[in-house]
């Protein structure tokens, strides 16, 4: 079975061959004539087609077989990467020092600072062609707030926030706010509430010992209206990365001033399907072997990017110190934990189900712990930011995923009551130094009582959950996996209009395949119980 994330003409060992030229041309033609893509999106797609005529960076036969089987998935990252998948520049560098490359001096006031950031974003590459990280925007701009009047500051931030959405039409583009209250951050939360724009995707770093309570309540109120910001467990992330970490794209974590060369993932469901043997041998053999080949594939890509493409020697971002190779790492992701656990349980003749029964949940934690250990045993190339090891990421899915649940999530519509849901997910999260996201759906009675949602957030974070994403059943923004799209964009795309947001094209397939619109609301009625039975 050929992996769905490879293009039909791709040949991993040799690149495009003459007998597939017609297939290749058909793909080019389909792209050129696709009315659902904007010109920019066509250009990006054509570039991807050209890249994928190349052979993959060299890997062993067995690793290539894993890629072809779809056990290892390259996430449409391309055959021959020429920029890191994720870049999270330290934007305080050009603000402070100016930039020779941009021919701009240091920012002296809020006008300069906003101009610098908006200019800088258009030079930051990533897998999507847009920046995936806008920086800790509150901390970046707060030092300049006093350089202008309060009214001017508000107007400038208003322009800034509006232009993020209009100039970077991509739902993966992610800004961070918090954990400390700032005037800039407060205004940004107000603006985000007012606009309801897809961009920026937004994370709120939260530590109850640092963050003011009414500040986080405002963040939760925003989330109940627009499904963002996500509440991020700051303490936990600081323990892995120190204070200076980025939450970018689909909740990925890495240092500011760095990024991730690649994100390549394992499909746990496919691994279990390919595995012949019992659960113990899955843990001790298949899991370990897969981890080894995954790191091999990752290393081949890191080496290609750093040593052949010489990205870090050629990029002005590195030259001017916005990024540094020593702050880079690479992400090993996975999907399909739920299916893997349920299939293994079934094979043992057990009805225990992930999210609902303790035996299945315990197996899930064993799988994650073992996979983490196996990944961290392998040396990783050019991953100085994480002690020359890959980092582990619960991946949020791509549009071709059918019957594969993102990361460690419980399948949509099979989620248990929220308390059990939290208790299912929290035990894994300490392993996910590369990020994870858990989505909890609330009905609209929660909008009048954000403190109640905050109670759940506290319980979850105290139990070790790394990121709490609030979703409201009837929000205008639909959460696809790690990003948001507007309901109206989905309707337009279905009616074959092209839409401004590149990510929405990915979203429309994702919505249909993953059942996001049906994501179950934690209706209060579900917890109604009789007498003393409170399960």
């Amino acid at each position: 079975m050929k992996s769905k994330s490879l293009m039909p003409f791709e040949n991993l060992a040799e690149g495009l061959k003459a007998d597939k030229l017609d297939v290749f041309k058909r793909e080019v033609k389909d792209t050129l004539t696709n009315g659902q893509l904007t010109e920019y999106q066509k250009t990006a797609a054509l570039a991807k087609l050209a890249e994928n005529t190349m052979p993959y960076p060299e890997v062993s036969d067995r690793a290539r077989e894993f890629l072809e089987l779809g056990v290892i998935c390259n996430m449409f990252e391309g055959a021959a990467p020429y920029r890191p998948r994720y870049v999270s520049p330290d934007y305080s560098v050009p603000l402070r020092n100016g930039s020779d490359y941009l021919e701009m001096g240091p920012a002296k006031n809020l006008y300069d600072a906003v101009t610098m950031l908006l200019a800088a974003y258009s030079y930051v590459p990533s897998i999507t062609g847009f920046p995936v990280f806008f920086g800790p925007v509150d901390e970046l701009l707060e030092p300049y707030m006093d350089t202008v009047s309060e009214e001017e500051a508000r107007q400038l931030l208003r322009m800034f926030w509006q232009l993020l959405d209009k100039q970077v039409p991509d739902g993966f583009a992610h800004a961070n706010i918090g954990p400390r209250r700032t005037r800039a951050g407060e205004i940004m939360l107000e603006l985000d509430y007012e606009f309801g724009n897809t961009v920026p995707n937004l994370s709120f770093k939260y530590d109850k010992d640092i963050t003011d309570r009414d500040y986080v309540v405002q963040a939760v109120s925003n989330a109940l209206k627009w499904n963002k910001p996500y509440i991020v467990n700051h303490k936990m992330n600081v323990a892995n990365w120190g204070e200076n970490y980025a939450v970018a794209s689909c909740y990925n974590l890495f240092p500011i001033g760095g990024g991730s060369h690649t994100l390549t993932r394992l499909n746990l469901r496919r691994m279990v399907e390919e595995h012949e043997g019992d659960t113990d041998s899955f843990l001790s053999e298949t899991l370990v072997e897969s981890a080894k080949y995954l790191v091999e594939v990752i290393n081949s890509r890191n080496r290609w990017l750093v040593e052949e493409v010489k990205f870090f020697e050629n990029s002005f971002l590195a030259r001017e110190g916005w990024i540094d190779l020593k702050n880079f790492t690479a992400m090993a992701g996975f999907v399909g934990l739920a299916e893997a656990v349920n299939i293994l349980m079934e094979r043992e003749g057990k009805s225990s189900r992930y999210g609902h029964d303790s035996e299945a949940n315990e197996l899930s934690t064993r799988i994650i712990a073992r996979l983490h250990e196996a990944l961290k045993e392998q040396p990783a190339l050019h991953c100085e930011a994480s002690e020359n090891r890959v980092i582990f990421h619960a991946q949020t899915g791509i549009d071709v995923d059918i019957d594969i649940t993102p990361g460690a999530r419980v399948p949509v519509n099979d989620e248990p009551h929220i308390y059990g849901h939290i208790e299912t997910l929290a035990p894994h999260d300490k392993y996910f130094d590369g990020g994870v996201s858990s989505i909890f759906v609330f009905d609209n009675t929660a909008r009048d009582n954000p403190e109640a949602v905050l109670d759940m957030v506290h319980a979850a974070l105290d139990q070790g959950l790394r990121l709490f994403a609030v979703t409201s059943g009837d929000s205008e923004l639909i959460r696809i996996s790690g990003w948001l799209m507007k309901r109206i964009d989905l309707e337009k795309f279905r009616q074959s209009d092209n839409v401004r947001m590149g990510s929405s094209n990915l979203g429309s397939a994702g919505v249909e395949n993953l059942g996001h619109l049906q994501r179950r609301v934690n209706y209060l009625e579900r917890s109604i119980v009789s007498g003393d039975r409170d399960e």
Partner: protein
Amino acid sequence: MSEGLVARTLVNSFVDGPGNRYVVFLQGCNFNCLYCHNPETINLCNSCGVCVVTCPAGALQKADGLVTWQADICVSCDKCIEVCPYSSQPKAVSMTAREVVVGIKKYERYISGVTVGGGEPTQQPEFLADVLRLVKEETGLSTFVDSNGSASREVWELIRPYLDSTLIDLKAFDDTVHQKLTGWSNGQVLKSIELLSSWDKLYEIRLVIAPGYTDNMDNLRDTVKFLLSLDNEVGLKLIKFRPFGTKGEAKDWPVPEDSLIDAMVDEAKALGLKRVKRSL
């Protein structure tokens, strides 16, 4: 340790006071409101047995003149509640205050507090006091009571040491309307509201907007003026009448227009009340 009759429990609620709350509904109410949304909590089961034959799961049985319910095979279809001719249910269970609090403590990390409602919780005053006392002694949770306000000063005094605050229904300001709606005078309700307010233990007044009874601005204005005269700053929640769960004539009442509820919220705020909410 006192025993009480518990109608049911909820492990999470967003609409019974501040934060996420565990809710205990006690069985039995002295009022008989036309629009009661959970009439199965009004009376104590008289073991007539009508429900036993309708149970699809075989969870109900009648032996020695008593109807019993088996929780572990119940499928929660609520058929027994639907057919009960006596505004009761076979699923209320007798529990000690200790058992109730053990149930609450399992969820302590997820909640801000506990709200005891009903039925009418003050109809079981010793049990109510024991539950609240144990919660206060053994957890850091806040304690709220959701009541129709008919209890005497003695009952409020009994629970006062363990009570953080209350949610009180003021079903109509005009006593004649109140009597038509509930079968009781609102004299003691108004006294309870004043008493609880003077203790700073009054969080929210609830008013169901019932067509033909309280869907008018006069009742709203009288209510708001009364609330503004109180010692503490109290919230007001306007609840749109819905036919769900009701029995008798209210089943056929129309649902008030959202525009009316919104206008009432605006009016209450314009009169000077700060915390005004409405139900969905």
